[in-house]
């Protein structure tokens, strides 16, 4: 019975996710058919930005799904049980459970990225840059999720923070170049959607230099370091009040 229920849920949410992807991709295709270019990018390039966004979005949802289940643990005091176990509380809270629905969508997404990416004729170096910056994007996503967890401990609020994060990353569905200053600057450096999503796609198109790649990797490492520091600080504020 439980298996049947979970299968129904999986089918429903999988259908929803696929539909959302197909609808936006269709819209983008017809938009570019009429407008020809978007912020200077042609149709294939714009679609590649969208696919890269999806790769990072889906992978981070797949890996960090446990964050969505964190609030009840804090509210009920069950987080005490995590803290007493001989494993990293951060690892358990961040990556303690994966989302099977996203596991289904990841392979076809990689195929689509490979297919559209190859149409952009990247060199091997640019492809390496892309993979490195994609990993860096996931590191930044991890830093975001750790920060959300830390805020969760301090404020008991997770659901809204994570949804705001999701909405902000949605702004990366299209190249950040479409935004005007100061929003563009904010999305590039302050809420680094640009570094997280747009930069990998730009790297494959040969629009990012080696110093740019190194700077971005450094930015990712610093963001992760600071988020872990914040997590350690947040832990000192955990009162276990409900347990």
């Amino acid at each position: 019975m439980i298996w049947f229920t979970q299968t129904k849920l999986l089918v429903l949410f999988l259908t929803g996710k696929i539909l959302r992807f197909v609808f936006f991709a269709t819209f983008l295709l017809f938009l570019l058919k009429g407008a020809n270019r978007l912020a200077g990018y042609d149709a294939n390039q714009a679609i590649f930005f969208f696919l890269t966004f999806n790769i990072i979005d889906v992978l981070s949802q797949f890996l960090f799904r446990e964050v969505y289940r964190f609030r009840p643990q804090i509210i009920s005091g069950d987080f005490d049980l995590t803290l007493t176990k001989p494993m990293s509380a951060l690892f358990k809270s961040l990556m303690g459970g994966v989302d099977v629905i996203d596991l289904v969508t990841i392979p076809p997404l990689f195929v689509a990225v490979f297919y559209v990416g190859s149409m952009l004729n990247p060199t091997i170096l640019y492809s390496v840059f892309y993979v490195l910056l994609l990993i860096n994007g996931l590191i930044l996503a991890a830093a975001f999720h750790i920060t959300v967890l830390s805020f969760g401990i301090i404020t008991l609020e997770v659901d809204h923070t994570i949804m705001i994060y999701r909405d902000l990353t949605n702004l990366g569905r299209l190249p950040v170049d479409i935004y005007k200053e100061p929003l563009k600057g904010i999305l590039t450096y302050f809420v680094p959607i640009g570094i997280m999503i747009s930069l990998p796609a730009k790297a494959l198109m040969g629009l990012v230099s080696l110093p740019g790649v190194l700077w971005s990797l450094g930015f990712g490492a610093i963001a992760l370091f600071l988020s872990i520091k914040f997590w350690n600080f947040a832990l000192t504020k955990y009162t276990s009040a409900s347990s």
Partner: protein
Amino acid sequence: MNFIMWRARNVIQIVLVFFLWDSVFSDPDRVVFGYNRASILTYVFGILIVRAFVLSARAVDVAGEVSSGDLSNYLVKPIDYFKYWFTRDISSKALNLVFAVFETILLYLLLKPPFFLQTNPLYLLGFVISVILAMFIFFVILFITSAVPFWMPEVAWGAQFIVVMVVTEFLSGALFPIDILPRYLQNILYLLPFPYLIFFPLQVYLGKLGAMEIVRGLLVSLFWAVALCFLMKTIWNKGLRVYQAFGR
């Protein structure tokens, strides 16, 4: 908190749509898909207002009440469950509208887009009627999807996720005007109730439709409002017969 976050999310979504179209229409004289810069940016700002009227609805919680068994609390009381939720919806829309107007003014001052102000009273009347019909259609759609937990209590949010967050979001014109799609796709979509939620009222406001097209659109909206209402009552009557108040 839920309400403020819902409003914040609406604004973020509008920012994406605004800059997307702003980028496409960076040349002020450019005309694409029959829109110029002023009309498309008015459409984007119009989304914010029409969404507050149509898509902000407390009735999204009905599915949860059916699934948790809380519906029983209302069934034993001498109140009409549909009218109760419709009243709550209206009050929610009033609150959302206040915020939407404030956000629109703020975004207008920040982004300074060209804005098309409709002055023809007939178009304005058509706009108001189409929005009222859209509000009712969306309310009924929500109640139909909220009936799914009668048969599958554990998937209370699954059906709403697909119908409200995915299908309505895209096919209502809340992200892009439907008429950028090829004609054959538009013709199929116009047979569904979704374009009459956001797209049709905004087309009327922008004055893009002739008198006959407006009347025809209003009649189609009215048809959907009546047909869906009938469907909703049929489904709910069947649902209440199998309702077992799970969770109670």
